[in-house]
């Protein structure tokens, strides 16, 4: 099992519902977020291309955050989901420094927090909150090892890229372009 997400940048309208859904679902403290939306504007008028991306932890295959954690608080769960065990985390910040996507933050309670792919929902067979709330249905969540899954299908038929692949982390969020 290898969980991943594909996000259609052509369908995303930047409404930020995913951000709010995550904050509500996961009780993210005010002023913090586990996912966010960026807009990249490329070119000059009239030849402009705008790309909207909903971003979050990439649950990297080669994750520096798991490697550098001195206590093993950052670890892999089933399906390659990268998780932080809160009461094992000492808040040293090494993992925050190590993430090229700036996907982690220091929770006011001291431990480090980030996207969990809503593992509590995924284990029940549901989609992550951000995916299920998206009004344009532009996100696909699923198992890359299952050849019949929607995500494998969409990645087969569309062009996609990942963020900062040169950082060598093997990210698992794909942006359909």
């Amino acid at each position, binding site marked *: 099992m290898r969980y991943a997400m594909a996000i259609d940048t052509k369908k995303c309208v930047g409404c*930020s519902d995913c951000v709010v859904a995550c904050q509500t679902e996961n009780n993210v403290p005010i002023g*913090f977020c586990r996912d*966010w939306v960026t807009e990249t*504007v490329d070119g000059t008028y009239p030849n402009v291309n705008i790309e909207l991306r909903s971003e979050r932890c990439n649950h990297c295959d080669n994750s520096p955050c798991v490697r550098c954690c001195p206590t*093993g*608080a950052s670890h892999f769960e089933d399906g390659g989901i990268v998780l932080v065990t809160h009461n094992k985390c000492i808040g040293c*910040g090494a993992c*925050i420094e190590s993430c090229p996507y*700036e996907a982690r933050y220091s929770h006011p309670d001291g431990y480090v927090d980030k996207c969990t792919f809503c593992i509590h929902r995924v284990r029940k067979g549901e989609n992550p909150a951000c995916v299920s709330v998206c009004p344009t249905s532009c996100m696909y969540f699923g198992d890359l090892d299952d050849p019949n899954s929607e995500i494998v299908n969409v990645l087969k038929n569309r062009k996609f890229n990942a963020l900062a692949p040169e950082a060598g982390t093997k990210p698992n969020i794909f942006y359909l372009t």
Partner: protein
Amino acid sequence: MKEELFVSGRNIPNIDPYLHIWHWQIPIYLFLGGLAAGILFLAAVYTILGKDKEMQATVKWAPFIVPFALIIGLFMLFLDLKHKLYFWQLYTTIRLESPMGWGAWVLMIMTPISIIWSASYVREVFPNWDWKFKFLYAFEAWVIKNRWYIAWPMAIYAVILGIYTGILLSAFNARPLWNTTILGPLFLVSGMSTGAASIILMSKNHEERRLIGRLDLLFIAVELFFIVHMIMGFLAGSQVQIDAANLFLGGEFTVPFFVFVILLGLLLPAVLETLELIGFKVPIIIPAILVLLGGLIFRFIMVEAGQVTRYLY
């Protein structure tokens, strides 16, 4: 033209617009670690060479700073943890992949070694010192007899500790300014140099000061060479690394870096030490203090500037 902006979500304290996760404690931790490594290495080497009579400050007096430096260093690390009550878990896990983890262990091993080393000289400083227990006297006698053998692992551990202070930063691929293998050797020589400077400050023997001063000149030369090498490496690297080098070459850290680190921390002390060597009267404490301050500021700048460099946004 390409422009990137956040539509929503991101304005997280200490993450945006750039990281500020490691604060002033970490550069002090790295500085004290390097200083301790420098002193212990020189103490061990001159013990191995059988020069402990001539090099009193190097072998005996300066190592007294080390246990304090290491304990304060560890305390600094502790201060910068955000989940402090869980600190002990650093020492219930061994994860060799994590520089933070094995560094904490190296310090844990270094501290008792340095305490034992200094303790074996305590009665030379305070002749009235009483160990109270018989077995402590026996242990002291054993240490004194075997100093030469203890010096070997101590020298090796000192080098590991010195290199570690650089690796703690260089292991992070996500911070392009830190992500260079030269940082380990660079922080090691810089640590040696600050160690030598503190020995110079403590030594009363003119010959010893001259010898350590000459060594320090060598350390400074190597350090300058490594710094040039590091910046050249960045300029020949990928875009994020070129951007990192440009922080020092016209960017926001240019003035502090060149004025405090290169000029006042390396070149000026090198000139003063050379003048002293060829016979001019220079109060030797001036270059020594400059080297120490330069080393400290260098670590502050590296930790701050590294957190400004990133891949995205």
